[in-house]
């Protein structure tokens, strides 16, 4: 019942893709209006960060550059996307309160808008990755194509996380704060700046297999670094998507009508 209700809302939101597209682009354009480089400023700052961290940590860990730098680059770029989607997911309804109280637009449009906006920004950042590969002279392999289904699965997971957090945060305004500090902790717990192979065996099993973000990151990152994806990562991500969506659909279907009252 609630699930059907929620799915109907999501289906109507998907039909409004042109609104989602317009609003998402509008957000990016608005943020960088009258700046000559626009969103490429993000690319530059991301590039500088990757370079700096790459030099410092490459030295500390004594990792070979051609292994560590591409790993770090794609990790930071993807993490930037994941963490922004999640923190902005918290405010996707709160930030759109004026629209929600004014126009009867299916509420998931606001979640998709936020996802689309961050995908546009990701597309600007991703250009760093091939440059890094060229710099260290490491070629892409055919496995890289497997990053596409991986990314779709990541997106599927991020969508429910954003929707769920959007509903919860609209009602309880402390949660965005909690989430943003949590994301910082997760950043250090997830192998982004450090190679998973550096972990001692036993600690590794806990820190990696229990961390959903490790699996989500790996299904996209691994193929791009020329490894065939690990079945365990895929299974964990799929399970996460199924369970997550079930919970989210129940909750969203139940409280969708109340969101306008909470804002």
């Amino acid at each position, binding site marked *: 019942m609630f699930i059907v209700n929620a799915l109907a809302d999501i289906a109507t939101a998907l039909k*409004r893709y042109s609104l989602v597209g317009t*609003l998402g682009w509008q957000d990016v354009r608005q943020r960088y209006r009258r700046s000559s480089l626009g969103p490429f400023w993000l690319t530059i700052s991301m590039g500088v960060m990757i370079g700096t961290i790459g030099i410092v940590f490459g030295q500390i860990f004594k990792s070979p550059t051609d292994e560590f730098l591409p790993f770090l680059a794609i990790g930071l770029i993807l993490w930037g996307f994941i963490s922004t989607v999640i923190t902005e997911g918290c405010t996707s309804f709160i930030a759109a309160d004026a629209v929600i109280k004014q*126009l009867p637009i299916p509420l998931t449009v606001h979640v998709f808008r936020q996802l689309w906006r961050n995908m546009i920004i990701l597309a600007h950042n991703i250009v760093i990755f091939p440059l890094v590969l060229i710099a260290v002279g490491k070629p892409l392999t055919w496995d890289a194509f497997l990053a596409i289904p991986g990314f779709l699965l990541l997106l599927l997971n991020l969508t429910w996380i954003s929707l769920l957090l959007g509903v919860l945060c609209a009602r309880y305004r402390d949660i965005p704060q909690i989430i943003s500090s949590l994301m910082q902790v997760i950043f250090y717990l997830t192998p982004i700046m450090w190679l998973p192979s550096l972990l001692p065996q036993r600690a590794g099993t806990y820190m990696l297999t229990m961390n959903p973000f490790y699996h989500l990151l790996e299904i996209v990152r691994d193929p791009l670094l020329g490894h065939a994806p690990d079945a365990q990562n895929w299974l964990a991500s799929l399970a996460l998507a199924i369970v997550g969506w079930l919970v989210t659909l129940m909750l969203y279907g139940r409280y969708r009508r109340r969101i306008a009252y909470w804002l």
Partner: protein
Amino acid sequence: MATINFDQVCVDFPIYNASARSLKKRLFQVATGGQISADQSGRVVIRALENLSFNLNHGDRVGLLGHNGAGKSTLLRVLSGVYAPSSGTAKIDGEIGSLIDIGFGIDAESTGRENIFLRGALLGLDRASIKDKVEEIIEFSELGDFIDMPIRTYSAGMHLRLAFSVSTVIRPEILLMDEWLSVGDEGFKARAEQRLNELVASTSILVIASHSKDLICHTCNRVLWLEHGRIKMDGAPQEVTQAYFGY
């Protein structure tokens, strides 16, 4: 044919004070049990609409009368689908268009043309159909070359012209309005009036909130008088306006 069916519709706004909104309070409530739950049950609720029941059918031109805070805008928002009733059922069949806040969603830094697409998308038009209409909209607004200038360079009147020109391209079955729109200088006003009349004529049901007796008597064939969120009177314009305005 559009129909609107309200049965015992209530709208209650919960007012969360800062502490009730926080998770901390929630957790402490659970921990401390009954004590604070007294204030939980006594949560402040504003009842904006109470037990509204009415049916609107094809051809109804409904005027909403009532003092400030009587619930007119809330009723319009329930009709538009923004708020779902807290209790009771509101059945609305038909595509809804709203001219409640025509300037809504306009971005000052974007050009007039970009705003046509933005506003059009918010109104529910897809890109292709906006593209079809964009020339007509620009022509109607008479903004000329200014259409490719950022909106912040517009005067207030030009701003309204653009908003009006975009917002009135829709042809909904149910039209919601908060007061009659009157924009621009003399020349534009006449054309706007004509366009609005066409739009109203093409809709199946019109609901308009107003404080003007002339407008209500002139446009409507039924009037709902709201007071404190309840229907005080429902009837023909002449008799309701007579009772409401006292003349």
